[in-house]
């Protein structure tokens, strides 16, 4: 089974660097599954877990925005922050989720609303990834 290299890079460090069989991401235009020999492309990403399939195993990485560059045998995801499941504090994420939901329920200006929504999305992503 052919593989492609998945790299996830943040301004601080390289979070992930492994050979995988398939990458599933949520792009701004919808979900994308990337297999080896995909056509080169660039797309921004939404705040969502990235799934990497290695054989029958699956690994999840929480990627907060950023974008993805696909080449023939390599996928590079650049994000301002990204975390592996093992680095995530699920309890803290749960708390953040509740805080964000609480704020969403209050009537607020548009900017605050957007910010709360983004926070909620990040928390949900973390919980999803941390739970696996």
């Amino acid at each position, binding site marked *: 089974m052919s593989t492609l290299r998945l790299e996830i890079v943040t301004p*601080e460090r390289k979070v992930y660097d492994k050979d995988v069989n398939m990458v599933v991401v949520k792009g*701004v235009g919808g979900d994308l599954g990337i297999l080896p020999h995909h056509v080169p492309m660039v797309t921004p990403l939404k705040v969502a877990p990235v799934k990497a399939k290695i054989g029958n195993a699956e690994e999840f990485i929480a990627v907060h925005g*950023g*974008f993805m560059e696909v080449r023939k045998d390599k996928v590079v995801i650049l994000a*301002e922050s990204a975390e592996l499941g093992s680095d995530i504090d699920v309890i803290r994420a749960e708390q953040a989720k509740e805080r964000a939901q609480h704020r969403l329920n209050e009537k607020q200006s548009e900017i605050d609303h957007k910010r709360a929504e983004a926070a909620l999305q990040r928390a949900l992503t973390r919980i999803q990834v941390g739970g696996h």
Partner: protein
Amino acid sequence: MAKGMREIKRQIKSTQNMKQITKAMELVAAANLKRAQTAAEAGRPYSDKLKEVVSSIATGGGSVKHPMLQTREIKRTAYLIITSDRGLAGGLNSALLKRFVDTLKSKHKSNNEFDLFVIGRKGRDYLKRREYPIKQEEVGVPDSPKFAHIKSLASAAVTGFEDGTYDEIYLVYNRFVNALSQIPTVKQLLPLDASALEGTKQAGPSADYEYEPSAEDVLNVLLPKYAETLVYSALLENKASEFGSRMTAMSSATKNATKRIDELTLTYNRARQAAITQEISEIVGGANALV
């Protein structure tokens, strides 16, 4: 013991204490410098990659136009000044701020033509005292800064450019050359220099990308990020400069202290000898008087 001698002894003691402190600071700065350099290197893949993709879109598409790549008439300028929080780093901050104020004076007639975004306590205090318009400030950035620490400041400046508040943004920081030399730099951040991007374009099959949803949309997301990344790497570089400069300053302070101790010890020994000689001549004089 003569009175002068006690004085000298005290001076030696206090110089020794100072030497210990400067020596310790030198060692700490050296360790921090190494860390700052590693951090700057760890961030390089990210900014390199971003630059590569941005340049391949900006130069590959041909028809792609983006406000961030275009120069427009300059009505208002934003400056992003990066300084350190702590002093004792030689002339690092003062050289940078002096250079910056000179630039301001030569380019602008009044304080209404620009806004300042300041990172670091030293720069903030200096510019505030001189009543320059500080729009936003960020102090207490730790020694190994994370991207999140300057995110709000950087994106505020970049957003200001996007919505037309500013027509150009300059980055003011100390460029790190090596531990002995740091250069105060005023660099244009926005609009991005398209010709500089072209130079980095790599030959090879990687240039033909498909863009999802479109090249413009991708560029809209990427360019602000790229600009923010440039700010972050400037911050890392300034940190490295700070430690480098502190290390050099402290090493010369240690050297000066050693010299001073040597001098004082010499003076002390002379004084001691003089005291002994005087004592002997007094005793001899007294004995002679008895006979």
